[in-house]
């Protein structure tokens, strides 16, 4: 139990003292999570919309597949990304291995099904009258997409925060693809994993608290989208 209390104090120390390693990890975490969220939302929202909006043959099967992709273990994604961007892999020449870019690629793959699945479910639960109303008001395809997403914004917000939580907390991809290089690709979660592995539980707790503080600030700043 002590290490939790110690962790609390250490968390405050880390932040105040401006510990370089910690701040580097915070920065790395922010960079990759921002990147992967941008890409997964950019791709996932339209995909989720299409799946939820239209009725087509094989929709149910596609949804089941999507649900299965939610169970993609992060280490597995890490391995597959590794296979592609390793020096000998098909994308080896870009040198993405052990870079934040590599992690962002993996996390995008992780977050994409989350965004897509929740968006699809939300759009599916949308009032059918909305569709008709938009068409009759003269909305084009683009307008329909944007307006529908805005109409179900609480659901979309849920998709976003869910994907964000997934990205922020994953270790497998960052570890495998990023390599956990200090001052470079070490993110907060890989740092926690490392400290824990070293038996430095208090440090793990401290870093965990730092991570949640970041998540809290981010969530707070998007909470204006919530219903008042």
């Amino acid at each position, binding site marked *: 139990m002590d290490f939790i209390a110690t962790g609390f104090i250490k968390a405050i120390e880390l932040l105040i003292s401006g510990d370089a390693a910690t701040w580097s990890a915070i920065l790395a975490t922010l960079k990759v999570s921002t990147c992967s969220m941008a890409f997964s939302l950019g791709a996932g929202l339209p995909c989720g919309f299409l799946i939820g909006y239209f009725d087509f043959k094989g929709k149910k099967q596609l949804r089941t597949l999507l649900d299965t992709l939610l169970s993609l273990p992060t280490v597995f994604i890490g391995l597959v990304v590794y296979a592609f961007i390793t020096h000998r892999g098909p994308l080896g020449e870009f040198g993405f291995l052990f870079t934040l870019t590599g992690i962002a690629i993996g996390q995008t793959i992780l977050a994409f099904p989350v965004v897509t699945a929740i968006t699809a479910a939300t759009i599916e639960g949308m009032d059918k009258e*909305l569709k008709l*109303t938009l*068409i*009759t*008001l*003269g909305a084009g395809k683009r307008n329909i997409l944007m307006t529908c997403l805005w109409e179900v914004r609480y659901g979309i917000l849920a998709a976003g925060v869910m994907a964000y939580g997934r990205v922020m907390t994953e270790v497998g991809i960052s570890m495998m693809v990023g390599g956990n290089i200090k001052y470079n690709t070490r993110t907060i979660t890989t740092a926690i994993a490392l400290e824990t592995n070293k038996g430095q539980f208090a440090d793990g707790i401290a870093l965990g608290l730092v991570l949640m503080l970041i998540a809290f600030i981010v969530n707070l700043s998007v909470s204006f989208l919530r219903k008042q």
Partner: protein
Amino acid sequence: MPEAVAYQLKNIRHYYENTCALNVDELQIAKGSITGLIGPNGSGKTTLLKLLAFAMPPSCGDIFYNGKKEGCFSPVVRSKITLLTQKPYLLKRSVFENIAYGLKIRKDCRNLDSRIRTALAYVGLDHAQFAQRKWHQLSGGEAQRVAMAARLILKPEVLLLDEPVASVDTQSARLIRTASLNARDQWGTTLVIASHDLQWLYSISDSQLSISNGNIFATGIENIIPGPFEETREKTVIKKLEDGQILTLKKPENKKNTAMIKKDCLRIKEDNGSDNQLSGQIISMLAGEKSSHVLTHICVQELSFTLKLVPDQICRMNLYPGKNIVLQFDSTDVEWI
């Protein structure tokens, strides 16, 4: 010069799963006309309006708009035709934004505020009081009227209204009528309006279409006698009413099972010439479009009939709502559908 045609429908069938909800062999709607759509629940009014709005494609058949076959996302269709849906859905934003939505889509935002003020006035809502309300802060009729305003502001070429006055008070119904007539007169808008408020519909439309079971009759407000009928030994069928009165109709051609009688063929008893004599009661009398005739509803047990009477006859026979009368028609005047 022949009247310009806005819509031309050819061999339209629309199916929901396996049931046919609409079945129109041929229909034309003239430009600048106001067409009333009358029919019982489930007769296919909404289906027809959705097809006319190109909001869904018919299961088979062709719809021509201004002589061209159009699809759902053709720019002409999307920018010129608008439908007020039966359950108006308001976007989750303010009344102002709801009404502005169509214009914003069209990237036409000049004088937005004053145009919205005008649109709200059309439906009798006060700009100061309503413009900034949220979508959920409206009563049923207010929401309906906001939806109507959102259509009127578009100055559409075609305005399709699905029960625009269903939960609207009489005063506002009159405003909507004025606004609709206005749209036709000022912008040349073609209107098709479905409503169960026959009095209101009759006061606004140039011509009426009756729908029954997905079939359309262009002849106006007709009297429909639904089945079942019993066959007799002669070439007639009969229908027994709840109080024992009997209708006699000529036998239908194959399979048809709904009878229709034109308004003009119904008479309130003066002579004894008809084979059908039904005692009923006048329920209501409404002023017709040009005040030259009176639409009279007569209830004969579970059936209801509509007649067109001239003021003369009303005065001569001392007719008034509540009066018991005898209604008559010839069995041969019946048409089967």
